[in-house]
C-alpha cells in the first residue's frame, strides 16, 4: 500500500506532508514529555524488529498465499500511540529511501495511511476500548481483529482518495475502491490474527512487559478528540491553501512564478527570443526537412493541456526532449569517466 510520487499531485502530496509533519511534531513532543527515557532505545529497536519481522513470510492455511506482519498495531500496544507513530514513520522513511517503496513526496501520505491512522484511530478508539487493560483470550482476539481490519480499511480508503484526488491515474473512484477494499480486508484480518497471537505469546511468557506498557503510558489523559480535530484542521487549512494555488492556475508553480517574474511563463519562442532564435536556427537546424505542417489535434484531447497542441509542435517537443535527455546522459557519462579515473 505504499504510494509512489508518480501517482501524486503536488497539492495532495503537500497537504499530506503538512498533516504528517504536524502529527510527527505532536508525537515527538508527547514522547519527550513522558519521563520514561527507556522508551528511546526501545522505540528504535522495536522499529528494527518490525522491519526484520516483515521479511518473514508465513503460509496462510488453505489459500496457498503467504502473509506477513505490518506491525503498526503491535507497536502501538507495546509503546503507546505516540512512540509507535514515530517508530512506524521511521520504518516508512527507511523503506522509502533504501527500498524505493514509496517516494519522498509520498512520505506524508504513506506515514498517514499506514501509521497515523492505526496509531491514533485503530489503537485508542478500537483496540483499547475492546481489550481493556488485561489482554487475554477472546477479547484480545476480537480487539486486534477489529482494530486491524478498521485501520487497514481506512488506510486503503485513504490511498484511493489520495490517488483519485491527484488525478494522475484514470482509475475511477468506484472501481479502485472495489479493487482495494477487499484485498485489505484480508490483510487486516491476517494482521489482527498475528498481532493477537504475538500479544498472547508475550502475555504468557512475560506479562510484565505488557503491564508496564499499559501503565506507564499516559493514555488516560490523551486528548484524542483534540488530536483528531487538530489533524482535521491542519488538513483543511493545508488543502485549502494548496488547492487554491492549484486551482487559480493550472499549477501553483506557475502562479508563484508569475508573482516573481511578472509573467506567467518565461519569455517563450513567440516573443523577443524568437527573432534571435530564428537566426541561430538557420545555421544550426540539421534536420529542417522534418518540420511538420501544423495540424490541430483532436479537440477533445486538447481540453486538459494548457494550450492547444499541434502535431508538429508536440513532435518537436518530443524530439527536443529526447535531445536534452541524450545531452544529459552524455554529460553524466563524461563526468563518470572523469571521476572514475583517479580511483
Amino acid at each position, binding site marked *: 500500500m505504499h504510494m509512489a*510520487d508518480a501517482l501524486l499531485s503536488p497539492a495532495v502530496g503537500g497537504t499530506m506532508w503538512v498533516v504528517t509533519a504536524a502529527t510527527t511534531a505532536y508525537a515527538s513532543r508527547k514522547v519527550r514529555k513522558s519521563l520514561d527515557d527507556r522508551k528511546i532505545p526501545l522505540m528504535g529497536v522495536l522499529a528494527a524488529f518490525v522491519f526484520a519481522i516483515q521479511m518473514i513470510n508465513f503460509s496462510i492455511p488453505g489459500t496457498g498465499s503467504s502473509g506477513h506482519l505490518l506491525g503498526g498495531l503491535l507497536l502501538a500496544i507495546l509503546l503507546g500511540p505516540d512512540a509507535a507513530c514515530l517508530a512506524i514513520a521511521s520504518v516508512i522513511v527507511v523503506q522509502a529511501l533504501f527500498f524505493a517503496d514509496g517516494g519522498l513526496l509520498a512520505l506524508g501520505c504513506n506515514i498517514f495511511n499506514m501509521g497515523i491512522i492505526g496509531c491514533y484511530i485503530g489503537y485508542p478508539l478500537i483496540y483499547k476500548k475492546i481489550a481493556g487493560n488485561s489482554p487475554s483470550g477472546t477479547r484480545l482476539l476480537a480487539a486486534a481483529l477489529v482494530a486491524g481490519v478498521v485501520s487497514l480499511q481506512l488506510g486503503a480508503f485513504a490511498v484511493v482518495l489520495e490517488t483519485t484526488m491527484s488525478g494522475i491515474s484514470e482509475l475511477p473512484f468506484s472501481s479502485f475502491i472495489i479493487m482495494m477494499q477487499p484485498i485489505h480486508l484480508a490483510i487486516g484480518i491476517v494482521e489482527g490474527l498475528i498481532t493477537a497471537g504475538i500479544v498472547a505469546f508475550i502475555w504468557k511468557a512475560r506479562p510484565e512487559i505488557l503491564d508496564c506498557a499499559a501503565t506507564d503510558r499516559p493514555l488516560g489523559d490523551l486528548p484524542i478528540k483534540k488530536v483528531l480535530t487538530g489533524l482535521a484542521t491542519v488538513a483543511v487549512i493545508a488543502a485549502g491553501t494548496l488547492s487554491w494555488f492549484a486551482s487559480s492556475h493550472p499549477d501553483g*508553480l506557475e502562479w508563484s512564478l508569475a508573482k516573481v517574474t511578472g509573467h506567467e511563463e518565461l519569455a517563450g519562442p513567440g516573443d523577443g527570443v524568437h527573432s534571435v532564435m530564428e537566426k541561430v536556427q538557420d545555421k544550426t537546424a540539421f534536420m529542417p526537412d522534418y518540420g511538420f505542417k501544423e495540424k490541430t489535434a483532436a479537440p477533445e484531447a486538447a481540453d486538459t493541456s494548457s494550450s492547444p497542441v499541434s502535431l508538429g509542435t508536440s513532435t518537436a517537443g518530443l524530439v527536443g526532449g529526447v535531445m536534452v535527455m541524450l545531452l544529459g546522459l552524455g554529460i553524466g557519462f563524461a563526468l563518470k569517466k572523469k571521476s572514475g579515473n583517479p580511483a
Partner: protein
Amino acid sequence: MCISSRIDKAFYDIGRLDILALADTPLHRLDPRAKLLATLVFIVCVVSFGKYEISRLLPFSLYPAVLIGLGDLPPGYLAKKLIMVSPFVIFIGIFNPWFDQTVMFTIGPIAISGGWVSFASLIIRFILTVSAALILIASTGFAPMCMAMEKLGTPKIFAVQLLMLYRYLFVLIAESLRIVRAHSLRSFSRKGKITYRVFLQIAGNLLLRTIDRAQRIHMAMLSRAFTGEIKIVRQFSFGYKEWLFAAGFSVIFITMRSADIAGLLGRLLMEIK
C-alpha cells in the same frame, strides 16, 4: 524465493547502498542539506506537470544523469532497484489506456490514445522521482541524512529514532535470518515454509529478545551518562559549493518547469516556426 534468501537479499541491498555512500566524490562531499533540498525541488517540479506531459519531463533526466556521473554511481544497480519496485505503479497506471481512449494524435495508421500518453508520462515520472531518491541516499548515507533532516527542522527525537532504527536494523535482520535458517534446517519436509503457529513462536521469541536488547542498550546508555537528552555531534558546512548546487539546480528545475526547453530546442532543430 525462499525466505532466508529474501532476507539475505534485503541485507545485501541496504549494505550496498551504504557502501556506495562511503565513496569520496564531489557529490559525496557536498553537505547533505544541499542534496536534500535540490532533490525535493526536483520531485515537486516533476510531479507538478499535467498528466499528458511527456516532452517537457524528459529534460529532467539531466539531474539523475549528472548526479550519477558526479557521484560515480552504478546506473545498472539503480535501474535494477527501479524495476524491482515498479509493479505497483505499472499496475495502477495500466488502467489509464483502458479508461481514457480519446485519440490524441496519430502516427501514420496508429492512433495514440490519451491513456497511453498519460501512462507513458506516469512511467517517466516514476523513473525520475525514484531514481532521484535512490541517488540521494546512495550519495549521502543514512546517518548524514538524518542529521541533515534534524538541522532542517525535523523533531530531534524523530531523527534519533531514525538513527536508532538504522543502527539496529542490521542486527535484527541478521538475528531473524539466523532464526529462519535454524527453522529451515529442522523442517525437511516443509521446505522451510513457516506455518502461522510457528510464525507466532518465531515472532514472539524475536520480540522478547528485542525487548531485552533494548534494556541492555538503555543500561549501556545510562552508564555513558545518558540523561534523556540525545546529543548529535556533526559538523556541517553550507559553503559556496552547497549554495551553488542547491540554488543552481533549483533554478534549472524551475526554468525547465516554466519554460518549454524541450519544445524550444525541438523547434530549433526542426525549423518549425
